[in-house]
């Protein structure tokens, strides 16, 4: 028995939790992880018989090469950024809202009903009504699962997710309603909005980008400088602590979820009024899911999310252009986004833990 213990060697590698890490080193690790993801993606491109450098270059070219490309990339960034910020509010409370897709559609449906039925009103009023309707509709759509979570601890992940499919079916239903269609067309499609329901453009992109930047600053202030923001972070750390401190956890949950989903709803308005000019099945188009990546990679920080959402928009825009230039399917964007997030999730381990290899004990003592 004792022999066995003596023979039991120190493991080849063991890990120790780091007390702290310099920010520089943490960013270096993240940078390496990003590089790792890009290299892995490159290897995949290589096995498909393309030159990875060429493909990546044409992705960047497709996203930022021309003025029109930049405008398109910014247009893709807006929904990702705002939805990401919305999702981060919920995620900070550890409320897993993966129903942003449905909340975007709920907002889009509300905004579209205003555009369809009230487009005789003045331009500014129509837009304000659309925005308000979208904000409230999205918020309420997200409040429903939050209410059940607060009251009976109903699984919010699945609840919010199922709401996505319900909203999507409702959009398809509306597409089949004659009163929503173009009278000249027999296709099941919602008709294009008139100009009174369209957002104006600034620098060639609908003003959603200005709204997005305002939301970034507002969210930062809300999260770091207000009582509400503080409550959100306490609930996220531990719901029990919040309860002992006398906070009304249920109310915080429902309120924050309203805001989270309302931002997604607003995105629905920006999509139908600014980007597409009508309501379709692809109005949300996966933004609700990709925005989860934005929130997580941005570490729930609104300013960091600007950079991340721009980067992911570049991937998506770039993937569209490599579809035409290299005949690589545009779904490559999802694949790459997933890869990057995998690497980023993995690298956090190396930021939180230090690996110590066998035989490096001396070094450790000296260092």
């Amino acid at each position, binding site marked *: 028995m004792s022999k066995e213990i003596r023979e039991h060697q120190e493991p080849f590698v063991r890990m120790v*939790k780091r007390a702290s890490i310099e920010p520089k080193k943490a960013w270096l690790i993240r940078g390496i992880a990003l590089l790792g993801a890009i290299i892995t993606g490159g290897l995949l491109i290589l096995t*498909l018989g393309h030159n990875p450098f060429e493909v990546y270059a044409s992705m960047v070219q497709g996203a930022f090469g021309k003025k029109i490309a930049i405008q398109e990339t910014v247009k893709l960034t807006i929904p990702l950024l705002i939805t990401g910020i919305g999702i981060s509010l919920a995620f900070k409370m550890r409320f*897993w809202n*993966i129903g942003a897709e449905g909340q975007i559609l709920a907002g889009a449906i509300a905004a579209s009903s205003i555009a369809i039925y009230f487009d005789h009103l003045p331009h500014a009023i129509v837009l304000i009504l659309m925005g308000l309707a979208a904000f409230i509709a999205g918020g309420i759509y997200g409040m429903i699962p939050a209410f*059940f979570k607060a009251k*009976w*601890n*109903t*699984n919010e*992940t*699945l*609840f919010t*997710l*199922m*709401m996505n*499919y*319900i909203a999507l*079916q*409702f959009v*398809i*239903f509306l597409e*089949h309603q004659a009163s929503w269609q173009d009278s000249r067309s027999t296709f099941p499609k919602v008709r294009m909005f008139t100009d009174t329901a369209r957002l104006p453009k600034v620098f060639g992109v609908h003003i959603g980008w200005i709204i997005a930047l305002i939301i970034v600053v507002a969210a930062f202030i809300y999260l770091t400088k207000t009582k509400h923001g503080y409550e959100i972070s306490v609930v996220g750390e531990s719901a029990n602590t919040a309860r002992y401190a006398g906070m009304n956890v249920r109310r915080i949950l429902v309120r924050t979820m309203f805001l989270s989903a309302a931002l997604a709803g607003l995105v629905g308005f920006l999509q139908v009024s600014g980007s597409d000019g009508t309501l379709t099945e692809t109005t949300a188009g996966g933004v609700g*899911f*990709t925005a*989860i*990546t934005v929130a*997580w990679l941005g570490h729930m920080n609104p300013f960091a999310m600007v950079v991340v959402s721009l980067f992911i928009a570049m991937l998506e825009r770039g993937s569209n252009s490599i579809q035409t230039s290299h*005949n690589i*399917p545009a*779904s*490559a*964007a*999802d*694949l*790459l*986004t*997933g*890869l990057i*997030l*995998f690497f980023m*999730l*993995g690298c*956090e*381990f190396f930021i*939180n*833990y230090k690996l110590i290899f066998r035989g490096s004990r001396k070094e450790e003592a000296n260092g």
Partner: protein
Amino acid sequence: MDNIINLLNAAVAAGTPLLLGTLGEILTEKSGNLNLGVEGMMFMGAVSGLAGGLAAEQWLGGAGVMAAVGALLISFLAGALGALIYSFLTITLRANQNVTGLTLTIFGTGFGNFFGEILGQRSATGFAQVTQGTQAMFQPIHFGALSDIPILGKLLFSYNWIVYFSVALAILMAWFFKKSRTGLNLRAVGEDPATADAAGINVTRYKYLATIVGGGICGIGGMYMCMVTCNGIWVHGCVSGYGWLAVALVIFATWNPARAILCGIIFGGLTVLRMYFPIKGLATQFYDMVPYIVTIVVLVITSIRQSREHSQPKSCGNNYFREER
């Protein structure tokens, strides 16, 4: 009456991918891992199953049994690969289970659609489809006289082989969790990893194995969507929500594989209800909402009357840190 029989028959066929996804996730959750990547793993299994079938046709001499076996094996491996990534990130690198699972769904969906289109590009016709001989392998089996028995024949002896395979798997799993030593150990890991660890059970190995095999089973579910539901052709976004329904079904089945069979049939029935009991004036879209609405209703009901016995394995969703015991 005929309608009911036909509906039940269709429900079993439509519910099988749900059952497979549910079984895979039950096995995963029993080890304490909540893998929300079922949808992604099903996509990976779907496209790889198709690729496996096509590859077997090309290299192993024609369509038929080999193509079916190829599809089964490759789809299992693809789902297992997705689960391996998940396991490595959550078990070894201690990443958040929720986010890792969601990422797996994003990745797997991209993986499926990306390679689905690549397969289409590489085939002569412009879309990826297995030959008729292979398609026939996934048709309902005719058991001779047994299949011709009125009612019973239709209800019991008129399905493709994956249906019987899944039901057998469910029963095997029920036995595994209740009676086998390994199964009991696995449940101990899922309930309380620290205690299991102290009892000498290798927690890491159990978690890895259960999650990976679970992922492989989900992958087979995806293969079913591609080979049976979509007739052996790649359809963009073909899994479309079935993986998520499977995650919900785990809760309804109360982590019991045998009960999962029933849940699979019920939800399979809900997805095809429109074809057998059309209500005049009710738009098809509202029919298509039904499975999701029912899911929500059942979720709420189960959460209101929470019982200790029928609940999630206790450590589910949390990573195990040995040094923080």
